[in-house]
């Protein structure tokens, strides 16, 4: 790390990065390095954004699409967390379960979530079920892996202390492995929240009626590149917000545990 950059200097660096990004974009579009239809100017995207907020596109405004995306996303992510975290912790304690799940899981996790799209649609439908399953496929592996690693690396003395105090297996999992793995689990949820949100566009390729992904697919069909970019920005900004929120939660938990410096 660089020595001694002040907060102000760091803030200026971030601003510089953004200026370079938008400058390059504007320049490339103004010089028509790509045809204007394929590479809109930043303010054309801004206009498209205002229009999408005010008037429906494919049946919904931008907010409407976003809400329905978030709805699917939250379901898929919560399902991944609700299955992945307990399963990972149990695998960290019960060796037989580890041996049953790990070979299967290690194979399946290399299949990109988008590859599940056809089957998700066939098995769970194109309404809520299918897209939810694709997001689940994206968010599940980090949730499980981190909980598992957290449970595996719990300091032996805490486990022994629980055992000599008469704790049963489920109690060791719930009262020792879970709380001492919280930093690892929260880190896993953060990564899973990201990969789940990334899978969203893939999930909405099969969405029937609404969603940011559907909006982008429809706009692509008519070469409405500004609308596609608004979709990209919405996905990016909302993903950033999720990450910032989860990072704040992570830091709060670490502070509470007295682990933060």
């Amino acid at each position: 790390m660089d020595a001694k950059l002040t907060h102000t200097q760091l803030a200026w660096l971030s601003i510089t990065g953004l200026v370079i990004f938008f400058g390059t974009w504007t320049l490339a579009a103004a010089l028509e390095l790509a045809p204007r239809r394929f590479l809109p100017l930043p303010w054309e995207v801004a206009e498209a954004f205002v229009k999408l907020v005010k008037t429906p596109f494919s049946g919904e405004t931008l907010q409407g699409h976003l809400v329905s995306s978030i709805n699917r996303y939250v379901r898929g992510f919560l399902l991944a967390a609700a299955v992945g975290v307990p399963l990972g912790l149990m695998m960290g304690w019960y060796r037989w379960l580890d041996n049953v799940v790990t070979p299967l899981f290690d194979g399946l996790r290399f299949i990109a979530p988008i590859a599940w799209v056809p089957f998700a649609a066939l098995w769970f439908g194109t309404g809520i079920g299918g897209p939810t399953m694709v997001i689940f496929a994206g968010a599940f592996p980090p949730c499980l892996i981190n909980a598992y690693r957290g449970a595996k690396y719990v300091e032996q003395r805490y486990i022994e202390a629980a055992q000599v105090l008469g704790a049963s297996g489920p109690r060791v999992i719930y009262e020792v492995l879970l709380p001492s793995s919280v930093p690892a689990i929260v880190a896993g949820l953060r990564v899973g929240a990201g990969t789940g949100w990334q899978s969203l566009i893939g999930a909405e390729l099969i969405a029937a009626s609404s969603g940011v992904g559907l909006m982008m697919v429809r706009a692509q069909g008519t070469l409405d590149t500004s609308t596609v970019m608004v979709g990209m920005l919405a996905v990016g900004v909302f993903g950033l917000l999720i990450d910032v929120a989860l990072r704040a939660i992570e830091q709060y938990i670490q502070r509470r545990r007295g682990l933060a410096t």
Partner: protein
Amino acid sequence: MSSNITFSKVSRNFRRDSKDFFALDDVNLMVNENEFVAIVGPSGCGKTTCLRMVAGLEFPSSGLVQVDGVEVERPGPERAVVFQQFALFPWKTVHENIEFGLKSLGMPAAERRERIAGNIKLMNLEGYESAFPHQLSGGMQQRVAIARAYVLDPKVLLMDEPFGALDAQTRTVMQEELLRVGRLNPRTVLFITHAVDESVYLADRVVVMTRRPGRIKEIIDVKPVRDAEKWQQHERIEDVMDLESFVHLRTRIWRLLREQHDPADH
């Protein structure tokens, strides 16, 4: 209420580079009901292994470790352990840490509260019930660890160098406290230490162990001397340590430990 502990021909070996090493070799020891036995020895003599076998965290390669004539097969709350590094749960408050074992016993909430309150008073922890371990000093943390063990009303209390991580002054206070608490609640105690002073001050008998292989070299009877010389009349540890009878025993144990000192080690 209390129990006895027996080690019968206990050995523990492990293989390394296709050679057998004996961590413990033919250990025979009986700890009687309500007796306080300290094991001293150089590091690597297997004294902690002895304690962990009674706790059910490790097992002998041959021989038998029994509590009240029953072979130890797994850990249990009737054999409470106080660890050197405290091993308090950092995510639980003082109250919750002390409560942990009582929940294993399936005790009703009202009774739990009463028992915890009594032990918090006994260990002078009043006012710290809702503190987290990292907010406490080392000495206070060890008080919590002892309360967590005592609250279970265990048949035997296993203490693995419990004061090893404390500074000298805190250690002195805790040693006096342990003696005080032990008089109020007599208990079978197996106490591991490498501090000779501490073993003579606290224990009824001191077991001196040798290293490689870990064997019992000699067992020193402290209790007859303590009773005859009326150590209990002295309230402070330094007054007891000044007594000729104390110095005599301490020197004897020091000699036993030095005899086995291997010059090749240093």
